Structure formats: structure tokens, C-alpha cells
């Protein structure tokens, strides 16, 4: 049964290599044939895990760690793999509308897209399964190598520039991660996650390693203030690629950060470092949500929303710290963070697809000229709206469950300030959605550019399905996989209090959107201008690079002195 872990990697890799060598105009067949197999394997692993008493373990080549490399599937890996498989299937269905070679010969865009999609999938599965820090490094590189070309498939200068910035910054992150890996090996003589967990002590070598690795991973995940590459890359890519990048790729390095903090070195970071992480996350939520209000293009707004959501998934670090034992605990905060990650993955994939369909039907995606979209592309507009709702978190959604868990953790650990950030974030999320809805409801200014083909049904269905998936994630019986508190299982999905908890952020969001949102030629508030200046500064390479080193230094200082 544990050989399934190997097959979950071998199938997409094999598919990608076969597609590469056979080529031709039917490259997508290989991907489409691989998808159901991969999905079935992911589900089978989750099923096997629910019956097993501990994580599934596979020793590659029969060599046991520390010399060999192990694959491990625990509950984190299992849910991430299943959600990844689902999202990839949805994205592939969507991409059938955009990435089929029109000519009888092999064409560049489909060839690259389908092979890279499979490669990216195998890289993610490897991230979720790997039990070895260096294998994780290789997995992260696989991820970057398959993600970067997706950014610039259309070959425009601005996307090429975005891809180059992404590649260079991600490489910088990888190298920092790699130094840490080496230092940890020097300290313990192993790279295996379980063996390291048993060996690591808080000493200078390990603390320096931990802070460098974390900073590198944050750079790859684009947590505030290390996000210079993300908006342009995610907003400029073709819609299917944006969906993959935003929904899945950033989760890869996030997952490695979780592995590192919760599984490799739970006792190393100490309280101050967790507060630093959550402070960055809180800054990301507030700053990026406010900036989303200031965008004039829909895809950029969605990209900034991704930045804010990355903040949400990192907020759990302080909440998961147990003061008594001085360790990171795998409790409701961690479950809340992961739940947020998978809900965002499904919702954001659908949202980028919807934004792509809106672009396709209008010929542009300027927010101020969205008027009439509800008539031009009703299903796309509805999908966008539902995806936005899924991010706010109605009572049946995964986000609602995540928020409840995080709020509970904040309550249990007495850290009310992070709970406050969560609520503010909800208000701001509502605000930028309201901004879009307000523009969309306006009457049509001019007729849509003619010559745009109707959006394929399959695309509409794929996007809507993913969004609906996110909306019902809260209803899934998670008990066999997640260490959920018992009381969570029967939370009343339609209680009045639950509904109110969703409604009040929307009500406050209206004035916020009115005050801070970009509306026509009206002179913006001075705060908004300051924010835009700060954003421009942080997206400059030297600032971002210096911030990266500064984050590493701050984390190291917090780990040294804050314990």
C-alpha cells in the first residue's frame, strides 16, 4: 500500500517525460490521461491513511535514513495531495479551452503548458511527501522550474520581466534554504525530518540555519514584505497558469515552512520568532487587502488578494505556539491554517479563471469599466462573486471553519490581537469585493469589443466547480484525517450567529470600499497614496532584497534572544 507514495510521483513524472518525447499536437492527451490516475492515487493514499495508525512510510531503495531517503504521508500530506489533485483537474479542464494546438503540428504554448503542469504536480506531491530536507530542496527547484515558464507563456515583455524577477528572487530563496540544510546536516549528520527532530538543540548553528531557511521560504511564498515578484507574475500569466501559480505554487513553499517549524524543529523557534512570523502575516493581510482596493485591473486585484491570503495562512504560527512546553503544537491553529490554505487554493483557482473569462468576454479587465459584465458573461461574473464569498467565509465554507479554528486558538492562547487582525482582514476582503461588485452592477459604458468568442462551457463549469468545492469544504467530515476539536464536528452551519459573523464584515466593508477604493478620477485619500508609494518601494529589487536579509536577521535575533 505504501508504494502508492512512489506512484503518486512516478505517474505525473512519467506522463510529463512521455509527453515530451512523443510531442505532436496531442500533448494534452498525456496530461488528461494522467489526471484521473493521479487523482485516484491521491484519494487512495488518503483512504489508506485514515485506516492506518500512523503516517505511511516508504524507504526508497530500501535504504533507511539517515543514509537513505524516506517518503512520508501524514494527514497534512494527504489533504494537500487530494486538494492539489482536484484543483489540477479543474485547471486542466479549464485549460482545454486555451491550450489545444490549433494546427496539426506541435505548438509551443500547449507543449510547454501541459508538460509543465504535470511536472508541477509531481513537484507538489514531492513537497507534500518528502521526508528529507534536501529532497525538499530539489522539490522546490522542480516547482520553480515548472512555474516560471508558465508566467511568460505569451512572451510579452512585461510577463518576461515578471518571470525573470520571480526566477531570480526564488533562486535567492532556494540558496538561503540550501545553506540552512547544510548547517543542519553539519549539526546532526542527517537530513531526515524525524531524525532531525530528535536531534536538534537550540544552539547557534541550528538557529542561524532555521532563520535562513525560513527567510528563504518566505521569499518563495511572497509573504509581506518579500512579494516583489508576485503581483506582476500572477496577474500577467494566462488565466489557467495564474490559477496554478496562485492556488498551488505558493502553497508548496508554505508547506515546507510548516514542515520545518512544526515537524523538524518545533522547539527551536521560541515565542518571539512566532510573533515575528505572525506580525509579517498581519502586515500582509492589512497592507495587501488595502492595496487590492487601489488596483485598476481585476487580475491585479486578485493577485493582491492572494498576497493577503498568504498572510492568513501564516497567521497561525503565533497561535500554534504553546507557552508551557515552548514548542509548536499540531493543534487547532495548524488545522485552521491548513484549512485556510486548501480553501484558498480552490477559491482562488476559480477566481483567477473567472477573471480570465471576464477578460476574454470584455477584451480588458479594467475594474472601472466592468459595467454590464453580468449580462455579457453572467456565469463568469457569478463565479467571481461566489469565489469572493468563499474568501469571506459563509458558514458552510472551508474559510469559515478555518477562521473558527484560528479564533478559538487565539482565544485559548489569550492572543486577542491576532483575532482582531482576522476580523479586520474579513472586513477588507469584503471591501475589495464590494468594489468589484459595485462596478460590475453599473450600466455598460460601451459595447464589448466584438470578435470575442463565447466562453466554452467546460471553462465555466470548471471554475464554478472549484469555487463550489471551496464553499462546501467546511461540511466535509474531516475527523478521520485532522486533529479537529470534537465540538467542531457539529457546528450549526445555518445558525443566526454564524450568518451574522459573515454579514457584519460586509456591512462595514461598504464604507471602507467607498472611502479607500479607486473610483474613477476622484482624488484619492492621502493614506491611499502613501500605501501606493510603499507598495512601489517594496516592489523595487534592492528594497525587497534588503528586506529578505533583514527578515532573516530579525528571525535569528528573535530566536536567539526571545526564548
Amino acid at each position, binding site marked *: 500500500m505504501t508504494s502508492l507514495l*512512489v506512484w503518486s510521483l512516478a505517474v505525473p513524472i512519467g506522463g*510529463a*517525460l512521455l509527453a515530451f518525447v512523443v510531442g505532436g499536437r496531442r500533448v494534452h492527451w498525456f496530461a488528461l490521461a494522467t489526471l484521473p490516475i493521479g487523482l485516484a492515487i491521491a484519494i487512495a493514499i488518503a483512504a489508506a491513511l485514515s485506516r492506518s495508525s500512523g503516517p505511511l512510510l516508504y524507504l526508497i531503495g530500501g535504504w533507511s535514513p539517515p543514509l537513505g531517503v524516506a517518503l512520508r504521508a501524514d494527514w497534512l500530506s494527504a489533504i494537500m495531495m487530494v486538494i492539489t489533485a482536484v484543483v489540477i483537474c479543474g485547471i486542466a479542464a479549464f485549460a482545454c479551452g486555451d491550450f489545444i494546438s490549433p494546427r496539426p503540428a506541435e505548438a509551443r*504554448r500547449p507543449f510547454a503548458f501541459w508538460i509543465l503542469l504535470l511536472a508541477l504536480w509531481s513537484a507538489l506531491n514531492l513537497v507534500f511527501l518528502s521526508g528529507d530536507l534536501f529532497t525538499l530542496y530539489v522539490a522546490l527547484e522542480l516547482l520553480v522550474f515548472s512555474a516560471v515558464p508558465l508566467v511568460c507563456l505569451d512572451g510579452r515583455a512585461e510577463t*518576461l520581466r515578471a518571470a525573470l524577477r520571480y526566477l531570480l528572487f526564488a533562486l535567492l530563496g532556494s540558496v538561503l534554504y540550501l545553506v540552512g540544510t547544510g548547517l543542519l546536516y553539519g549539526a546532526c549528520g542527517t537530513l531526515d525530518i524525524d531524525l532531525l527532530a530528535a536531534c536538534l538543540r537550540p544552539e547557534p548553528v541550528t538557529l542561524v540555519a532555521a532563520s535562513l531557511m525560513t527567510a528563504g521560504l518566505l521569499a518563495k511564498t511572497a509573504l509581506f514584505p518579500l512579494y516583489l515578484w508576485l503581483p506582476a507574475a500572477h496577474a500577467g500569466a494566462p488565466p489557467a497558469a495564474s490559477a496554478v501559480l496562485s492556488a498551488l505554487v505558493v502553497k508548496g513553499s508554505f508547506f515546507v515552512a510548516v514542515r520545518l517549524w512544526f515537524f523538524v524543529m518545533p522547539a527551536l523557534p521560541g515565542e518571539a520568532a512566532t510573533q515575528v512570523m505572525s506580525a509579517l502575516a498581519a502586515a500582509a493581510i492589512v497592507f495587501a487587502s488595502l492595496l487590492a482596493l487601489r488596483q485598476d485591473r481585476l487580475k491585479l486585484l486578485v493577485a493582491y488578494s492572494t498576497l493577503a491570503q498568504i498572510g492568513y495562512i501564516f497567521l497561525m504560527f503565533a497561535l500554534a505556539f504553546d507557552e508551557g512546553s515552548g514548542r509548536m503544537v499540531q493543534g487547532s491553529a495548524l488545522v485552521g491554517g491548513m484549512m485556510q490554505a486548501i480553501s484558498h487554493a480552490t477559491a482562488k483557482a476559480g477566481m483567477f479563471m473567472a477573471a480570465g473569462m471576464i477578460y476574454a468576454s470584455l477584451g480588458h479587465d479594467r475594474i472601472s469599466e466592468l459595467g454590464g459584465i453580468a449580462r455579457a458573461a453572467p456565469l463568469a461574473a457569478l463565479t467571481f462573486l461566489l469565489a469572493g464569498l468563499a474568501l469571506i467565509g459563509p458558514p458552510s465554507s472551508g474559510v469559515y471553519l478555518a477562521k473558527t479554528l484560528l479564533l478559538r486558538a487565539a482565544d485559548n492562547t489569550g492572543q486577542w490581537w491576532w483575532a482582531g487582525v482576522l476580523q479586520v482582514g474579513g472586513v477588507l476582503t469584503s471591501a475589495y469585493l464590494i468594489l468589484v461588485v459595485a462596478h460590475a452592477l453599473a450600466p455598460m459604458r460601451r459595447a464589448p469589443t466584438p470578435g470575442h468568442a463565447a466562453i466554452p462551457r467546460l471553462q465555466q463549469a470548471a471554475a464554478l466547480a472549484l469555487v463550489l468545492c471551496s464553499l462546501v469544504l467546511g461540511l466535509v467530515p474531516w475527523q478521520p484525517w485532522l486533529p479537529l476539536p470534537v465540538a467542531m464536528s457539529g457546528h450549526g452551519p445555518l445558525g443566526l450567529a454564524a450568518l451574522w459573523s459573515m454579514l457584519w464584515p460586509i456591512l462595514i466593508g461598504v464604507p471602507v470600499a467607498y472611502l479607500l477604493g479607486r473610483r474613477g478620477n476622484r482624488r484619492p485619500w492621502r493614506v491611499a497614496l502613501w500605501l501606493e508609494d510603499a507598495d512601489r518601494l517594496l516592489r523595487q529589487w534592492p528594497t525587497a*532584497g534588503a528586506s529578505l536579509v533583514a527578515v532573516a536577521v530579525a528571525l535569528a535575533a528573535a530566536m536567539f534572544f526571545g526564548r
Partner: protein
Amino acid sequence: MTIIEALDIGLAFLVLGVAGWTIAAHEAFTAVIGYVVYGLLLALVWVRLFALDVALTEAAIGSGVTGVLLISAAVRLRASEAEMMHERLGIAPRLVAAALCLVAAAALAAVVLDMPDPGATLAPQARQPLAELGLGNAITAVLIAYRAFDTMLEKVVLVLAVIGVWSLSTDANWGGLAGPTRLERTEGPLAFLAQLLPPLGIIVALHIVWVGANEPGGAFQGGALLSAMALIVLMARLREAPAIGRRWLRVALISGPVVFLAIGLLGFALAGGFLAYPLGFAKPVIVFIEVFMTLSVAATLPMLVIGPPDRRPS
């Protein structure tokens, strides 16, 4: 201080000096030349660290092939440098950056001085199964047996890099001959070298692969040497690079990872697990894998150096 120590210190200063020169140089071309020299000096440092396999890899790939790639890039990008001069940072941001980098380097230096000697090691565990595998070179054993999985994945990374580079072509040029448009064939010393050297290079490369099981060497180093021969032939324009749609090229590019993956999966049936080698046949299986890895490295590196197709397919 013994003479060896003095030489070590001299070498360290030389490496740092050339690295500093590379960073500080005014023109990109000068910096790249500095980097090639730096790579060769670094190979000497690796020899001093008793890492001959790494020294070979660094000289061949880190300095050699990377050097060719960067030199041609620097020449083609010369026109872009003047425009970017005004983007240079002022003195204050430079000082901030320097201070931050100094903190990082100082922390790492402190960690280095703090390291226990002898430190943690897997050398005894890595050494013990060597006889059973029929290998004499422990590094080869790590690469092809204990951590074979990483090596296989890294071959996939190479294929992905080729796809990424090719994807930077245009729709119209897809399927054309790889690499930039070339001038007509030249005669002269380079063409002479390109005719004379490859047979010799191929023999040496095969030798390096073959002895890799027991002595420093192996698939990476041999493959890099083969790819250098291919690059000389391409640079002398004795041959055109193949079209990217050619089947043999694609087969060569993926042969390493595919053979590796296939043998790994065969392990399920024959040796009781993924990437497990059948008892008593480990050595031939490993050599078999190494041959195909060499082939795919030799095909991949030139493709990465010459870049995406720049001409319409004929």
C-alpha cells in the same frame, strides 16, 4: 606555519579577490571572465577539501559550461548595459546592503568557527555497503544508490530547464533549429580544434564515466565533457544544432531520467522496492544507469547553452 598552510591562505585570498573583482567589475564581460577564473580557482579549493569529484564538476560545469553560457550572454547583452548605468544605487542604499550582507556573512563565519571537529558524519554508514554494491567511490554510491531518488529528480530538473528555455521561443519558430541564427561555417584554428578534439574528448569522457564507479568521476563529469565537445563543434559551426522536434534529440534528453525511473519501477518486481537494485547485479545496473545519465547530460547542457530556436522550421 607550514608551506601548505601558507599556500592555502594564499589560495583563499586569491579566490576572494577574484570573487570581489567579479562583483565589482565595471563591465559584465569583464565580470564573466573573472567568474571563469574564479571557478577554476574554486576547483583547487575543492581539491584541498578532498572532494575530487566536486572539483571536476565545478571545473567542468560550474566554471566551464556556465562560463560559455555567460560569456555569450554578456556579448549579446552589451548594448543593454549603458541604459542601466543610471539605475545604479546611491551610496546610502549600498551601505545599508553592505551592512546587512556583512551581518549575514559574520553570522555564518561565527557558525563555521563554532563547528565541532570532527563533526557529524555518515561516512561509516556510507562506506559499509560499498562492497555489496560493487563500488569503490562512495560519492557515486550516494548519488546512484542511497540518494538515487534525488539524482533522478535532478535529471528531471534538467529536462524542465530545457522545456523552459525552449518555451521562450516564438510560436512561429517552434520546431526550428535550436540556438540563435548562425553565420556561415568558418575555417581556421577553431574548426581545426573542433575536428581534432572531439574524438579525444569522447575517449576521455568515457574513461571518466567508467572509472567513476571506483575513483573520482562519473556521469556528471563525463557528460559535461561530452557536452563541451558538442559545444566546440557548434561554436566552430561544423554542424548545425538539431531541430528541437527531432525524435532522437528528445529521446537523448530524457534517456537519463526515463531509464532511471524505469529501473526504479522494475525494482518493485525484481528487488522488492522502488529504486532497489537486485542483489549481486547492483554494479551492472548502476553502470547501465550511468551510461544513460551521461547521454542525457551530454545532450542537455548544449541545448541549455545555445538557447531556444530562433529560426522558422524549414
